[in-house]
């Protein structure tokens, strides 16, 4: 049928504004800033930033797992509510995603600062103020806070779709409620976990705002370094090489997770 | 009745390199009720969709009223379709569904109103005009689908297993209703089904199909009484199909015995298939019959018993109103009327032995149970019980 042709404008758009830009990133990563000649120098330089890349991936991974641990009970609880309550809770989880994440992160600064709301409260109790900000813990908190809804929503929609007859069947075959959860519900919600972890990991590993505001001044993440290559240090070729490194990390992680779930990548996005 | 309304000439249809239909030649007379009957995947729905114009033939021609419409799109053909799952427009109410085609044809609102009311009358749905179609029962949705298709006054109404999703009782009622509507309006109906009983009850002409071929065309009586091959014999009703040899005109040999029969025109000593219908067989005392055997299973079926009798290792199905206990030794009598001789075909040897017969076996092979159908297709009552 000729209906296929309706996708042509879209495909042209994607070619020009997604594929070609990525090709340009490749081109920049392998050329010299000054002479424009082909070079591997940027890729070699990338080695210096290996520890930063590793740290970003590590913090993002910890945040993703925390989101999973925190998000699962919430998603599970919401999926078990009456439809009316489900809709309401779903809305409550989604709403923060629509609000400026810059300002919400800034609110955390106000809460955690040495002279912030929490520490002022601690001081009025007569205790010593705590070092709540400018450390990795604060960065992880910021990531978990910002990206938790991206974990809860896919988990919720997967748990929601589990056929209640399967649970009845498991009970019928002699499972107690713990076994029903461990042997039926949890394995069936694996696609939701994978897609949730992906959806938290990708923005977390590449963030530059959270680390700027909540992290210690010495530890930049890969996102910060890329941003500075384009905005302050102006070395787009090195920035492009770093972007490639970041993409490599992201796609390796996604591929690993999809292999782990025995999936061909179709369920990458479920929301 | 004699004018050809639709002609299919040498029609072939391929999907992804696989033949769904191979060389179909068929004509449909004006005003007749013709049924395409066969198991799922036999090509009956493909044939219907070709006539409707939803798909185009790979080879061959389709004529409507003598005009070649092979490449004419569906909206320019004067045929209308009743879909298997009704395909009612969920965003429109009953009235607007029926009026849909008339509005497309830009009839005046007065005329549309008159036409819709007439249709509502025909399908007995007066008073349902403003109901949303999703709030109707299966049977009512079915009626709306029929009214919607008939409102355009098509030359031919195509029906694709329209009763498949209804429960047994409703199906019977709708069969009568459809037949009545067809006679009242005098429109040609082309009806697709896998239910042999439905086909025999309603049709003027039955076309039995399998594997993309037409196996037999005839009146319901012809098809039942004179099946052309083992496939038709097995698909229409129950049959015992045996290997035999035609010794002469009107004389066939099987189980080492010669029987008089009504068939002629075969070659001398030609191997043939012999069909004996289970309800035609007379049970007599063991020593008084043409053949004798042992009853191996008895199933009560309401009106009659299905009994399986072992004759020298070949198991026959016999339907009888007299109870025979399991293990009984009985004889059977066959009259020339009971014996139908058919030429050997690719289907020979595939059907007719009931050695693995059991009640469950019967259900597993139920032609109504289409593999792969979702539970949406379950009759409504069954679902309500769940």
């Amino acid at each position, binding site marked *: *049928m000729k*209906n296929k042709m*309706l*996708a042509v*404008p*879209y495909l042209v*758009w994607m070619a020009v*504004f*997604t594929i070609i*830009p990525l090709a*340009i*990133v490749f081109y920049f990563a392998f050329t010299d800033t000054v002479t424009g000649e082909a070079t591997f120098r940027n890729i070699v330089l990338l080695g210096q930033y290996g520890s930063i890349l590793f740290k970003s991936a590590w913090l993002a991974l910890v945040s993703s797992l925390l989101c999973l641990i*925190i998000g699962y*009970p919430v998603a599970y*609880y919401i999926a078990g509510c009456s*439809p009316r309550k489900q*809709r309401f809770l779903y809305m409550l989880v989604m*709403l*923060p*995603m*629509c*609000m*400026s*994440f*810059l300002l*919400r992160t800034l609110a955390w600064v106000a809460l955690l*600062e040495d*002279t912030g709301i929490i520490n*002022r409260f601690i001081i009025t109790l007569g205790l010593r103020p705590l070092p709540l900000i400018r450390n990795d813990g604060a960065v992880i908190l910021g990531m978990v*806070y910002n990206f*938790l*809804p991206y974990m809860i*929503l896919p988990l919720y929609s997967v748990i929601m*779709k589990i056929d209640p007859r399967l649970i009845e069947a498991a009970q019928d075959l002699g499972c107690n409620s713990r076994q029903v959860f461990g042997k039926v519900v949890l394995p069936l919600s694996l696609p939701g976990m994978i897609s949730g972890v992906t959806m938290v990991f*990708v923005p977390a590993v*590449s963030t530059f705002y959270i680390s700027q505001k909540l992290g210690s001044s010495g530890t930049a993440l890969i*996102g910060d370094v890329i941003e500075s290559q384009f905005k302050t240090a102006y070395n*787009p070729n090195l920035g492009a090489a770093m972007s490639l490194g970041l*993409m490599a990390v992201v*796609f390796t992680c996604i591929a690993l997770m999809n292999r782990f779930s025995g999936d061909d990548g*179709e369920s990458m*996005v*479920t929301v | 009745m004699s004018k050809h309304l639709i002609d299919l000439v040498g029609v072939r249809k391929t999907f992804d390199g696989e033949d769904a239909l191979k060389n179909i030649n068929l004509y449909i007379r004006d005003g007749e009720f013709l049924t395409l009957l066969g198991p799922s995947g036999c090509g009956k729905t493909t044939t219907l969709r070709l006539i*409707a114009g*939803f798909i185009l033939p790979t080879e061959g021609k389709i004529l409507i009223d003598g005009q070649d419409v092979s490449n004419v799109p569906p*909206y320019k053909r004067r*045929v*209308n379709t009743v879909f298997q799952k009704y395909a009612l427009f969920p*965003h429109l109410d009953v009235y607007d569904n029926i009026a*849909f*085609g008339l509005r*497309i044809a830009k009839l005046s609102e007065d005329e549309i109103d008159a036409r819709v009311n007439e249709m509502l009358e025909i399908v007995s749905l007066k008073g349902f005009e403003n109901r949303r179609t*999703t*709030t*109707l*029962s299966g049977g009512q949705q079915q009626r709306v689908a029929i009214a919607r*298709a008939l409102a355009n006054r098509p030359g031919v109404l195509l029906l694709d297993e329209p009763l498949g999703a209804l429960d047994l009782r409703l199906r019977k009622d709708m069969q009568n209703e459809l037949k009545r509507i067809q006679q009242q309006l005098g429109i040609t109906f082309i009806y697709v089904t896998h239910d042999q009983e439905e086909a025999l009850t309603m049709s003027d002409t039955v076309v039995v199909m399998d594997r993309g071929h037409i196996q037999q065309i005839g009146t319901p009586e012809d098809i039942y009484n004179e099946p052309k091959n083992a496939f038709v014999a097995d698909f229409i009703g129950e049959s015992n199909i045996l290997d035999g040899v035609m010794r002469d005109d009107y004389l066939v040999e099987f189980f080492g015995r010669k029987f008089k029969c009504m068939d002629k025109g075969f070659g001398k000593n030609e191997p043939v298939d012999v069909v004996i219908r289970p309800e035609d067989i007379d049970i007599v005392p063991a020593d008084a019959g043409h053949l004798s055997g042992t009853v191996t299973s008895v199933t009560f079926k309401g009106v009659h018993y299905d009994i399986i009798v072992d004759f020298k290792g070949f198991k026959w199905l016999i339907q009888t109103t007299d109870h025979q206990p399991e293990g009984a030794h009985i004889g059977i009598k066959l009259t020339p009327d009971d014996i139908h001789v058919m030429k050997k075909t690719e289907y020979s040897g595939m059907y007719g032995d009931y050695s693995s017969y059991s009640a469950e076996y019967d259900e597993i092979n139920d032609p109504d149970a289409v593999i792969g159908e*979702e*539970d*949406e297709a379950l009759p409504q009552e069954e679902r309500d019980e769940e």
Partner: protein
Amino acid sequence: MRRFNRIFTIIVLIFLYVPMIVLAVASFNSGNDIAVLKGFTLSRYSELFRDGVLLPLLGNSLIVAVLSSLSATLLGTMAALGIHAMGKQLRQLTLAVTNIPLTNPEIVTGVSLALLFAFIGQTLKINSILGFFTLLIAHVTFNLPYVILSVLPKLTQMDRDLRDAALDLGCTPIQAFFKVILYEIMPGVISGALMSFTMSLDDFVISYFVYGPNFITLPVEIYNYTKKPLHPKIYALFTLLFITILMVMVLMNLLQARDEKRTNQARRIFSAGRRRVTT
């Protein structure tokens, strides 16, 4: 266990909302330090409305969000129809391309578009082409996949016979689309459009790399602001936006509830089988 989950969920929700409550409270605080409550005032709001910078920037954000979500909805719905008609291989390839902007880190998308625009600027010998159109293009690009992924399932769920039925009753293929198919996929089209709109309105990372000095959106400006001490009128703006979005969501929630009630009624009469979730 369920009780534990319930309490846990409440705690998590509090965690999610505490920072927003802090901002809302700050918008009524007469002191400038967000951490110290001085007294109640509405002056932040009057300052906001007299402000000549923030509101026009909000207007910019709205213009980009409206235009990009409308274009993405149109282009994406067409694409979904096209993808629906494709064979398996072509379809998988197209969906793989669709997944790129979704899985790629936003910063990479931003950087790659920035490089593309720089390249185009160079070839056309224009000093800087960054501005309204580059922002719009970037937003359409990251919105398209959301539209496609919300329309496509509606097309697959749709009874294939509906289109045939429309053709059968005399519709041309174009009439069939506008009189039947569009109604069926409408929920997907609307949710795709809404998702695009909110994504676009709140986007910072990609916009940050492709905006020009002549056309700045609110999130970008907030980022630039947060490098200096923040003026509390921004908290007032945040609070107003929060209330607006909350009201829109509650409204959608109610509409959905009404809709569901209707289909449930229908389901009771003629059961439609399994429960479905629409996200």
